[in-house]
């Protein structure tokens, strides 16, 4: 069936179909449609919607619901996500699953309300204090927003870790026609063992009491947790990298881009192919874990890479780490909420070639 939805609303529908139990958030543009939609729909489904007094409160309400083993989500945009970093660190330290969505806008500071990809560093390097990561998914279409939101809870529960879905305000605001029945955009999260819920706090009936905390003061205890988390992160790095290739087999130059930048780059690639230029595109879908190995493999043929972002150079650091000096890495980006155009990408490719 064909359907047309706004990115922000696809997120809501995906989350509901993924089993969302409770949603908490504080208003911020450009993702206000999410709260408006959930406020209307969740109570009818017997689920929880609550407008929090701040992003600090919102993320901690998520923390509370996550403690009970129920599926909680919050959404915000860049400045609000900065406020949530404390809570995200605690969620990771306490190993609580939940879904956090950042519909990115321009920064730093209050910035503007236009779409951007300026939060790549914050998203992929933990973001808050301590030694931790969140799984970061970067959809590039309305269909992917829907599918990622739907499967993100499973992914979060599989690893007892927050999952962050990030996309720019352009994707959040745009409406797009998509095919609901196609398999396109599915994450296909594999669940090997039944999800462990033996840690949830729901009352100590017929079992010993439980506690959940990240404060570990005894000697060596915290390091033990950090090592346990590392083992988990290593498993995620092994099993959950997702990346999509377009025309890379014979490509002499490869664009690397995600989200809206990838859409624009795809258009540029197709136009350049028509001119006979051997251009490919690598689109990381998980920004953490990053596709280091997969990108390295491409350097066997392509010796030039152009990283395209809606910031002034963040993912490029990961691409450089990935190619390990085997290829030259160039950059093109627009910042401050400006969208890159396919024309600009084409100019840059021609300049490099």
């Amino acid at each position, binding site marked *: 069936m064909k359907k047309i939805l706004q990115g922000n609303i696809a997120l809501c529908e995906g989350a509901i179909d993924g089993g969302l139990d409770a949603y908490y958030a504080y208003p911020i543009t450009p993702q206000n449609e999410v709260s408006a939609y959930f406020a209307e729909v969740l109570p009818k489904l017997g689920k929880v919607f609550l407008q929090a*007094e701040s992003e600090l*409160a919102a993320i901690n309400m998520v923390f*509370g*619901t996550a*403690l009970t083993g129920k599926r909680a989500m919050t959404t915000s945009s860049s400045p609000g996500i900065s406020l949530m970093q404390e809570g995200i660190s605690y969620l990771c330290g306490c190993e609580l699953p939940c879904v956090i969505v950042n519909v990115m806008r321009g920064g730093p500071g209050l910035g503007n309300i236009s779409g951007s990809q300026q939060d790549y560093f914050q998203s992929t390097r933990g973001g808050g204090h301590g030694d931790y990561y969140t799984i970061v998914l970067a959809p590039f279409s309305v269909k992917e927003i829907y599918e990622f939101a739907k499967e993100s809870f499973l992914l979060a529960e599989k690893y007892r870790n927050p999952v962050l879905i990030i996309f720019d305000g352009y994707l959040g605001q745009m409406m797009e026609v998509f095919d609901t029945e196609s398999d396109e955009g599915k994450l296909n999260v594999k669940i090997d063992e039944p999800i462990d819920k033996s840690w949830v*706090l729901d*009352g*100590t*009936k017929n079992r010993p009491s439980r506690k*959940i905390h990240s404060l570990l003061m005894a000697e060596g205890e915290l390091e033990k947790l950090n090592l346990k988390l590392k083992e988990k992160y290593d498993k995620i790095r092994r099993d959950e990298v997702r990346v999509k290739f377009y025309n890379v087999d014979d490509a002499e130059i490869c664009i690397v881009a995600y989200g809206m930048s990838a859409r624009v780059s795809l258009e540029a690639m197709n136009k350049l192919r028509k001119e006979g230029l051997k251009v490919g595109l690598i689109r990381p879908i998980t920004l953490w874990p990053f596709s280091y190995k997969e990108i390295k493999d491409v350097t066997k043929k392509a010796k030039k890479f152009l990283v395209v972002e809606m910031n002034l150079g963040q993912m490029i650091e990961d691409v450089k780490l990935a190619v390990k000096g085997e290829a030259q890495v160039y950059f093109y980006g627009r910042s401050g909420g400006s969208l890159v155009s396919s024309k600009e990408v084409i100019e840059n490719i021609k300049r490099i070639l």
Partner: protein
Amino acid sequence: MTPTKFVKPKSLKQTHHSYCPGCGHGIIHRLVAEVIDELNIREKTIGIAPVGCAVFAYDYWDFDVSEAPHGRPPAVATGIKRVLPDRIVFTYQGDGDLAAIGTAEIIHAANRSENITVIFVNNTVYGMTSGQMAPTTLLGQKTLTTPYGREANRDGYPLKVCELLSVLDGTKFIARGAVTNPKNVIQTKSYIKKAFIKQIENKGFSLVEILSMCPSGLHMTPLEAVKWVEEELTKFFPLGVYKDV
């Protein structure tokens, strides 16, 4: 040998706590545990421990307890209560946690009339970080960060939480007790019990402020601290029921 009513409640673990000699937290922990046992709600209670001296409360109570970021217990409790409305959810917070860094969270949880219970321990000083000024520190009171005494024109006035929250429509039971002598302790326990009963009856937000002793933070002996709380603190923070609707 038969136990009287003066034996350790089931809701306390066998572990010994690490509070300083004469610290009021231990008494308050026990009161909460007694009330939970007496109301027979241990199996459905979920507590939230604060950041502060009571951060380890989850090691002392024998029911489900979680930590929370500093000041955020009311938000965490909200997240639990909203998805598990038939459980009994309470937060245990100190004066820094509730009345400084967590002011927004407590006011809004109260104003939404979240059906939770808040145990608010006011000892006028930041014990865990070695005795700095708290929002409830009295004027003239010397602390690590008010070495010449708290001054209104620099530090503002002691924050009256019960009085402040009582004016909100969302609050259903607000009382202030103390743990300085057996009479006060028994009175405080009756407030705590009433607060939990409000929650059980789905009446909405309840809070009990408890004036407590922090001998280390106040640089007093336990007995001096008791005397000071009784004679000085209760003058500024009068005991009693502020709201019961």
